[in-house]
């Protein structure tokens, strides 16, 4: 039976900054397309979000919400958040270490 367990190794867990706050709570489902903590797999056509400027992310979300920036999915998703939620999302993703997930 013991053989059925994978060993717990000292491999590093991914760095995710501040999982406890409201930004993390709102951002968690975004990982379904943008990867854990906004780090997409290598070569994805879906952009990564980790470590980008908060102001850039907030203005992109606002432009998707208004329709100024056309999109397939992000317009409707952005309409699901108010200004303060967008700011929390943008700040949380900005605080994540950039890069790709394996």
């Amino acid at each position, binding site marked *: *039976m013991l053989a*059925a*367990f*994978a*060993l*717990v*190794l000292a*491999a*590093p*867990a*991914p760095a*995710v900054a501040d*999982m*406890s706050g*409201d930004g993390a*709570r*709102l951002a*968690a*489902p*975004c*990982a*379904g*397309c*943008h*990867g*854990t903590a906004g780090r*997409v*797999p290598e070569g*994805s*056509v*879906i952009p990564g979000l980790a470590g980008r400027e908060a102001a850039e992310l907030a203005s992109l979300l606002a432009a998707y919400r208004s329709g100024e920036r056309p999109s*397939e*999915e992000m*317009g*409707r*998703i952005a*309409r*699901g*958040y108010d200004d303060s939620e967008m700011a929390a999302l943008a700040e949380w993703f900005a605080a994540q270490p950039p890069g790709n*997930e*394996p």
Partner: protein
Amino acid sequence: MSFTRRSILAGGAAALVSALPVRAERILPATGPRVVVLGGGWGGLTAAKYIRLLDPGIEVVLIERRAAFHSCPISNWVIGHLRTVDEITHSYAALSERHGIRILHTEVEAVDVDAKAVVTADGVVAGDRLILSPGVAFDYTGIDGWNEAAARRFPAAWSPGPETALLRARLAELPSGGRVALTIPPSPYRCPPGPYERISLIAAYLKQHKPGSTITVLDANQKIVSKGKIFQAAWDELYPGIVDYRPDSPLVQVDASAGTVSSDFDDVAADVANVIPSQRASRLLHDAGLVPDGATWAPVDPYGFTSTLAADIHIVGDATDQTTVGKVPKSGFIANSMGKVAARAAVAALTGNEASPPSLINTCYSLVSPEEGASVGAVYGYDSETGLLQVRPGSSGVSSQRSATVALQAWDWARAIWQDMLG
């Protein structure tokens, strides 16, 4: 150990059927606060990983029968010969190596609600809280002529695995001018657009490789359940004369030796037939008393996806009751979102903190051909007046037309969400 009468009966019956010994002794004693997660599918994997991201001081034991993960989303692409079985099969190893999750691959016999434990073939694993994500069971009652021969002749391929490969292989063996049939159960079932994506990709395969072949669809629903206009337009424009879609046609009878599937109105003879059966919450939840007598799905409070029938037990994924959750689809994306909400709620409860309100997203990508697809999605928040999840105003929508962009995004969506669960 306090077993309910129901769980003893369930465990005993299952053990006889599977001929596996049920060992009642406790295994894996906890060294600190622990959550036991049942089911290595979309809801369970996400919950397990996110508990460890939220609080590495909480031990997570994940119990899953299969040695590798098989993805239900994208399995239609395998049936349609666009991707291989290997491409939807992934290792669980990173969850233990990177996140320190203890994974136990064994058969689950029962859930012991009172002891907050999962009874497995290897012994009993107890925790401070349980997160149950056992998925759906298939229900063939009410189909005349259903028997073992019918099960072989009419595979569901609605859980990824050997039947996915079987249906793919049968399509490859179909002669030109062959007849395919597919039946769709009444909603709600797992993956609302799934049957229609499958029809589309089978039709595309027939068009390219099996000239003169057709696919006849008996749909129990009165119309296409999801993305109706887009699928209908694709069938009319891309597969004229190939897709014969018949709504309001529940499957009532099969004949395995003749190869026919029948509604009240039609007998459809087929060389290859795919019966997608009615669905309900996993037997484990019914046996544990987590589904009320006579009900089909498990009621939960969506604030933390806690069972309304037992303390300290969360239920996520397709097995949950939409009348208690709110109108979210039974999709992989939603199961992933639910797993995160349950993880936060479980961690809050174990650390003496207030639970925070749920925030979920759904996005479902479907291909209508190998080159083009469409998507549907919404953002969900918690409505304190009804106690249900509700679409955030303006956030629900579907593609206006099929596009190549969505088809490209769909594959990278799958890669990202597989990584989010398994990486």
